[in-house]
């Protein structure tokens, strides 16, 4: 979707506020809890990372841009839980149970389980039978599209010519996985775009921008 998350190439956001290093990991107590709740709820397996990203980017654009990052995470988590039927809006407002919780047939994740879950991670690679359509060094074009669903092809690259520089094998396809329509793994490639082909003549001819793009985002040049 052409949502507020798709920021590449936009103007007017002002200077980068970097404070030097080291920076505290969290800047407010509530950020810690919001971060940890988002992970702990994710561990319950009621949604996946693509669905989580889609929940965040589906916030109204004005709200997304006016919110801090963990505010976006908090609102995204609430949306995921509402959609999954884990909570109802009134409960979120008052902070107390009003309806019987849906039985997930499991206990919440316990502290002693956390390290193992984080170490295991969630690899996105999948075996796929189809041979890759593109080879390293091949010229491709990022397709033009404007889907209303979740996608990871940024607007600034649509229609631009590039070159395959890495092949990562099969990876879960976010465009369907975000909507409960299956993982449908596709070959994933890193594509190199000349800065001038993306941004125009003022870009330095030596500069490049790369993105990791799924096979169906690409056409042979």
């Amino acid at each position, binding site marked *: 979707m052409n949502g507020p998350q798709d920021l590449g190439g936009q103007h007017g*956001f002002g200077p980068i506020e970097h404070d030097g290093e080291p920076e505290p990991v*969290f800047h407010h107590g509530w950020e810690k809890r919001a*971060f940890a709740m988002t992970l702990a709820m994710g561990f319950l397996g009621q949604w996946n990372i693509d669905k989580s990203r889609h929940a965040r980017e589906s916030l109204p654009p004005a709200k997304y841009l006016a919110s801090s990052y963990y505010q976006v995470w908090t609102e995204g988590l609430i949306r995921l839980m509402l959609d999954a039927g884990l909570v109802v809006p009134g409960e979120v407002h008052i902070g107390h149970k009003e309806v019987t919780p849906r039985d997930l047939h499991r206990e919440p994740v316990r502290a002693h389980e*956390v390290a193992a879950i984080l170490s295991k991670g969630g690899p996105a690679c999948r075996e796929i039978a189809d041979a890759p359509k593109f080879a390293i060094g091949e010229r491709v074009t990022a397709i033009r599209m404007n889907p209303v669903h979740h996608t*990871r092809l940024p607007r600034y690259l649509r229609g631009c010519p590039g070159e395959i520089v890495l092949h990562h094998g099969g990876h879960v396809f976010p465009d369907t996985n975000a909507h409960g329509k299956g993982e449908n793994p596709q070959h994933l490639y890193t594509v190199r775009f000349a800065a001038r082909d993306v941004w125009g003549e003022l870009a330095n001819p*030596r500069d*490049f921008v790369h993105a990791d793009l799924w096979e169906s985002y690409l056409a042979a040049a």
Partner: protein
Amino acid sequence: MGHDHHDHGTGHHHHDHDHDHDHEHSELSETALRVRALESLLVEKGYVDPAALDELIETYETRVGPRNGARVVAKAWADPSYLDWLRQDATAAIADLGFIGRQGEHMVALENTPDTHNMVVCTLCSCYPWPVLGLPPVWYKSPPYRSRAVANPRGVLEEFGVYLPETVSVRVWDSTAEVRYLVIPQRPAGTDGWSEEQLSTLVTRNSMIGTGLALDPARVKS
């Protein structure tokens, strides 16, 4: 409100927000209350255990952070066979040092050279290699960096005090999938014979994102 205030006490205040303190404070308190209500609800419903939340927070506040990545870089500088392994299979080479798991499942190492400078961004959200760098700094997740890193990387680098000659090729990597990138900055001159541990002190978080360079050893010593 009390909860937020209570947890604040680690001196995190953003200095340039102080002039706007009352406004910020009331807004954040509303968020703090919302988050606290959410936690009460999820605990009451049996979905989360507060002790597990504490463990998650402690993990990323104290155990996972850019010192991990600095060890990877220092080893790559000191040991050519390790650098080769990083080039071939960065995920395995990094896992060999014990840095594995969430948001580092598919790693690629990007080597800076005298001719090329690499810089990493996620224009679509905040993708970042957690096992080696920890959680991303606020600026990495914010619109000014996400919007401009791809379109004007040299301008962004100047904001970070990095001035590159026109002749250096700047290569930006937009983390649009689950591949995570770690920049291997150039090893500074004047570090011959340094141990990996000494070398790692020159490796900053920003040098591994590509918005900085490794520290000058002369300046570190003084």
